[in-house]
């Protein structure tokens, strides 16, 4: 049974308020705010990539405050150890005077974890987050400990200064729902920043989401309808981006080394639901899928050397994919076409 407009209204209003507040706090990044909110509603992890100073950390911090969730920040450095993230057991004197190992949770035990400059940590440390991101739990010394609900990892990385960095492994990249590129802002926005904000400090959120409101949002998300036709479109998109697959388009075959995993289809469907919620609809539309597909797929498409030689980017490939894979296209007889 579809949600009624009345049932959807609070959630829609809530998301609108969040977006408005984010837009008020951070100027000139409405699309990024929207996508981040979609990621949060979908309970997905988000990788933000951008130059220093474009507001990545500020956005994540503001989001943490707005959602009224426990927020922790980890600054990734080459000497960061897994235990620094996950935590560890330390020997402590007990109340009865005996020494005992006590688990000390790491920074990952929070609702929102900001993994700043994630690519600066060693692969070993980066890999420490794999289980946490997918299973939403941490296993140490044979003991599995669940992470708090909800749990989001919002990572950032700097596309420059690559010396001494460790590119995130594909397995970990795949666990991020979105990879968003945070770009700079135009002169008008800059003018507003420097005129309206002392030393560029963003204003503090004036309100925070109540827990029941957040739960309501997630509950509404659960009831957003995904029709067969749209699900088929999502599947077609992912299938068409598999090099060597039956439905693969020529560009995919030519420029891709590996395509996205089924996790991409799941992420796309979830993100499309969130996009539908933001649009105030109880059903996922084809346009919702199209709106989120580039950010779901761009970090999951592994380009081959040919693409690099020809300077083809993942986003270009996704655009081509969206052009060629028509949503719910009926097979008109040969010699017929349709036009609006």
């Amino acid at each position, binding site marked *: *049974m*579809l949600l009624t407009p009345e049932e959807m209204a609070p959630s829609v209003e809530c998301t609108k308020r969040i977006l408005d507040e984010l837009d008020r706090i951070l100027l000139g990044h409405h699309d990024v705010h929207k996508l981040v909110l979609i990621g949060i509603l979908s309970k997905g992890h988000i990788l933000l990539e951008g130059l220093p100073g474009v507001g990545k950390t500020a956005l994540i911090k503001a989001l943490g405050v707005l959602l009224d969730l426990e927020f922790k920040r980890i600054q990734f450095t080459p000497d960061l150890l897994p235990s620094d993230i996950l935590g560890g057991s330390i020997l402590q004197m007990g109340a009865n005077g005996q020494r005992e190992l006590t688990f000390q949770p790491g920074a990952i035990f929070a609702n929102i974890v900001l993994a700043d400059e994630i690519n600066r940590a060693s692969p070993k440390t980066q890999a420490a987050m794999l289980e946490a991101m997918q299973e939403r739990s941490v296993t140490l010394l044979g003991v599995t400990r669940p992470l708090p609900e909800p749990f989001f990892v919002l990572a950032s990385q700097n596309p420059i200064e690559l010396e001494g960095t460790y590119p995130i492994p594909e397995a970990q990249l795949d666990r991020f729902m979105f990879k968003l590129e945070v770009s700079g802002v135009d002169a008008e926005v800059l003018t507003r920043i420097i005129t309206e904000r002392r030393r560029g400090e963003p204003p503090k959120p004036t309100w925070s989401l109540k827990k029941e409101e957040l739960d309501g949002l997630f509950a509404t998300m659960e009831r957003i*309808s995904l029709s067969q*036709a749209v699900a088929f479109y999502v599947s077609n998109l992912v299938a068409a981006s598999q090099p060597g697959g039956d439905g693969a388009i020529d560009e995919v075959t030519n420029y891709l080394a590996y395509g996205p995993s089924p996790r991409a289809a799941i992420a796309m469907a979830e993100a499309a639901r969130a996009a539908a919620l933001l649009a105030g609809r*109880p059903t*996922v539309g084809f346009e919702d899928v199209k709106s989120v597909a580039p950010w779901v797929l761009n970090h999951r498409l592994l380009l081959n050397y040919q693409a690099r030689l020809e300077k083809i980017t993942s986003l270009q490939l996704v655009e081509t994919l969206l052009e060629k894979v028509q949503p719910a296209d*009926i097979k008109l007889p040969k010699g017929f076409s349709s036009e*609006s």
Partner: protein
Amino acid sequence: MDEELARAVKAVKAGIYWRLVGRWCVLTIASISFLVGVLLLLCRSFAENSYAGELLLGGIVVWLLLLVVGMCCYPKHLPSSESIIAWLDARSEGGGLMVAAAEEGASVWQARRSKISVPFIRWNTWGREMILAFCGGAFLLCAVFAPQKMREANMGKKILDIQDETHKIENQLEILENTLEVNSEKLKEMKDILADIQQYNDAGEASKTYEMLDLLQERIDREISEYFNETMEHVISSEKLAEALEKLSQLENHFEEVATASSEIAKFMAKLAEEDKELSALFKQLAETGDLPSLSSLENASPQNPLTPEQQKKLAEFLKKNADKIKEKLKQMAEQMKKNGCSSCENVSMASAEFDLKALEEWLVSNGGEECGSAFTIAMQCGGMTGGNGEAGRGRGDAPLEFTNTAKEVEHNVTDLGVDGMAKPDSTSVVKRTLVSPENVGDGDNAVKAGNLAGGNGKVKASSRPIHPQHRKEVENYFKK
């Protein structure tokens, strides 16, 4: 599914369906037009009737049947309602509400749903298919109308160009009709044959046509030859009689012979008059005026009442003049006939020109002088030309010549039927053979004769396969080489 969405789906389905039917209609028109056109042409080529009406009617019936079949089958080829709804949703950016409305009902969201834009179904290849149908229709029209004339031209037998030949034969027949007084039944028959040849002139059977032409020409030649021969016999007889009369007029006191001769002359004159009406009239006229003796006076001539030398001379002069006149007439006719391609006329004129009466007479005198006994006998002998089967200069010329039915040639064991000295030679006479037969060809010779070619050894026969006129010159040249 709400009403608006159902209407949109129906509109899309109808758009696709009717365009499919339209295309099927055009394609079947093109196909059936070509098919019926081809069948029509085939019928016209190989059958007596073109069956145009039946084929057109059949084509229309088949087309209607195919149309009905297409209309029945195409609904199965239409996309499903679900896929159309999803398609409309995607095109209208309906946000999945249309799909949801079809799947689980979304009437509460109908007001917020974007307007359904029903796309226009375009038939992209209509131009190509219309051209095909147009070509098919044009082909059918051509097959129905234009080829009718073509068929008449093609189906009608191809005619040989025998105008020259038929024209010459027509002229020859005209000359025969106007001049030679040929039997009207024979003439009519020959004209009928010519008409038949013209009517059944068929290039497919050129040999037969030319053979018939040759046969007709042969027949005409034969008629001409017969006539010429008869006339020449007549002329020769007249001339010889005239000479005999002249000689008789010089003989004195031979009353008995003159009387006998007068009786014979009377018979001969009667025969001439019977054959030549003009001569008969003239003879009667002269008899009445007294310039010539009457036939009765001739018949009644006796040693006591013989013809006077003057009468004999007048009679001889009359006969000579008459012979000259006939010869001149024959000569003119022969020239006319030659102009019209009468092959035998050349021989006729030559024969008449070369017939050396004096030499013949001398020969007869020297060879049969005693038996002939007198100039009269010689005259009778020459005039009758009844001796033997050979021509005048050869063969059985030395056979006993008698005027009874008892003449026999014992040595060669051949019995000759005696004929009247004045009897007309039959068609197998020597003179005729001389005129119409081909040049002498020995056994085993390869020769071209009178337009006929006989290959291998053997004599040439007039009935051998004819060589078409257009080839004859080349064939002759070939054998000349």
